[in-house]
């Protein structure tokens, strides 16, 4: 395995049971279905796709918050899916999560200081003084003042709360941060502040980001590599350039063409998809995208296309792409 791979995801499957446990015929929502990719050290990997396609689930499964039905998540050479409790707890220090909703991700009954102290408590690291120093440092780093420490989350603005969330993720010096739509709940003018902050922190602390978003402009701005998901499947992955400037999969094409453009002179033709995203509980046969695909062929509804490397480092799952 290459040295610079931080996380390797192999054939990961995460299914949810859709009915209650008393039911006789169980149904599954295949939120993540056979997904493989890797994260390189220090990069920002963007994960895009429509709502419900399994982005968050994938992120959380990688973190070990869900027990996957199949597959491996190899973090620094160790498969965390099979880890025992104690080892897992240690592992958690290396991976953190930043959430979409800054209000929901902070316990409303704790002060910011309590919230930032929590990771130290859980892992029993550092003395009181050390903790305090670290917290102060982080607060400064994310652009908050010390007097914020005694506040409660509801006394802060969305952007500030998101900064607290980021600071909490950084307390234990993680290597990987999974950012689950970290800016989509923020106002446009605040979005830019947070994105810049994330970029600065990455350099400073040598972080690897898995950046989940449905805003393709933001992903374009921040990510080195991108994966496009559709109904639990990864349909295309590649570098920034591969995905945005050499798009192969019809779904990815449509997605990118759908981004509204702020330049009134550069308006381009848009690829419109038919219909809605099918339910993940009942996905279409063959290629899951075939019901909406503008380039659909007979084969598509029968055989499921596999992820193929069409250019070096650029993988696509589509029958129409050679």
């Amino acid at each position, binding site marked *: 395995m290459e040295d610079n791979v931080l996380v390797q995801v192999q054939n990961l499957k995460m299914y949810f049971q859709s009915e*209650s*446990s*008393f039911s006789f015929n169980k149904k599954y929502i295949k939120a993540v279905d056979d997904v493989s990719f890797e994260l390189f050290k220090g990069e920002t990997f963007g994960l895009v796709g429509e709502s419900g396609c399994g982005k968050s689930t994938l992120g*959380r499964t990688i*973190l070990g*918050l869900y027990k996957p039905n199949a597959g491996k998540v190899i973090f620094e050479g160790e498969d965390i899916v099979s880890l025992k409790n104690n080892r*897992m*707890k240690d592992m*958690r*220090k290396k*991976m*953190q*999560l930043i*959430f*979409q*909703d800054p209000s*929901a*991700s*902070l*316990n*409303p*009954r704790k002060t910011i200081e309590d919230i930032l102290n*929590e*990771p130290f408590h*859980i*892992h029993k690291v550092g003395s009181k003084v050390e903790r305090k120093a670290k917290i102060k440092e982080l607060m400064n780093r994310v652009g908050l003042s010390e007097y914020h420490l005694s506040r409660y989350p509801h006394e802060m603005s969305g952007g500030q709360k998101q900064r607290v*969330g980021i600071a*909490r993720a950084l307390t*234990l010096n993680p290597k990987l941060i999974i950012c689950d739509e970290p800016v989509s709940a923020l106002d446009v003018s605040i979005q830019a502040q947070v994105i810049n902050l994330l970029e600065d922190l990455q350099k400073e602390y040598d972080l690897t980001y898995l950046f989940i978003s449905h805003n393709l402009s933001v992903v374009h701005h921040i990510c080195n590599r991108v994966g496009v998901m559709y109904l639990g499947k990864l349909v295309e992955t590649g570098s920034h350039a591969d995905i945005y400037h050499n798009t192969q999969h019809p779904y990815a094409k449509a997605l990118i063409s759908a981004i509204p453009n702020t330049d009134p002179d550069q308006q381009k033709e848009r690829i419109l998809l038919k219909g809605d995203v099918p339910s993940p509980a009942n996905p279409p046969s063959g290629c899951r995208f075939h019901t909406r695909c503008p380039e659909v062929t007979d084969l598509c509804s029968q055989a499921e296309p596999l992820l193929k490397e069409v250019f070096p480092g650029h993988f696509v799952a589509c029958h129409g792409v050679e």
Partner: protein
Amino acid sequence: MLLRIMKNNFLFSIGIIVCSLWIVIALVAPLITPYSYLAQDLAHRFQAPSSLHWFGTDSIGRDVFSRVLMGSRISLIAGLATIILASFVGMIYGGIAGYIGGLTDEIMMRISEMVMAFPGIILAMTIAAALGPSLYNTLLAMAIIWWPNYARVMRSMVIANKENEYVEAAKSLGASHFRIFFNEILPNSVGPVLVLATLDFGNAILLFSGLSFLGLGSPPPTPEWGAMVADGVLNFNYWWIGTFPGLAILTMAVGTNFIGDSLRDFLDPRLRKEL
């Protein structure tokens, strides 16, 4: 907050006034009762209300007014005890069911539903008949009837809070179940349960008086309002014997319900639905 609500809400103000009044009465009752609530005077039994006996006298010549005042203590204590007992049990039960979820939750909730389906008053009567009526047994029976409500609310709060991202955050930090439950979920879930408890206070007093009306409360000569109404039914034509303790129950229940009702209006809608 209290004053602000009071300013705009007539009924709430009444509730606060009535309840404070009863609490004060309960605290100082022995000091302000004109007679001992036990003093019998067979020569003056069944006296109609007069300047001597404001609420008249009962079948053994005791002063109804003094007994009504003293009765406030028992009603308040009974209401409080039931609510505390039931909410404590319900909270733990519902919390566990909600947190563990899955089959455990399903089974635990079916059990609590069973208790809810069970005719509470019959259960209470059976328990009281079997163990003998006493304040303790009656409170026990009431708590047994009452806890599933709290379990239900607690469970749904825990389930809702379990989904919160800050819980996920704690999990991703490696917090233990114990820590997650007690540090993250519980503090955010007890609020509504406590609110429900306050709202329920009046109902608990009502149920208690109903049971003591049926003779399932503490033994005489304890001045229990429900039992006094029962005495009034026995001595039907001396209307004052039953009327005044009944009014006492009514005012106390109305007071707490006015407060509860208004508080409910001030709650956020998500909460209101639960209660």
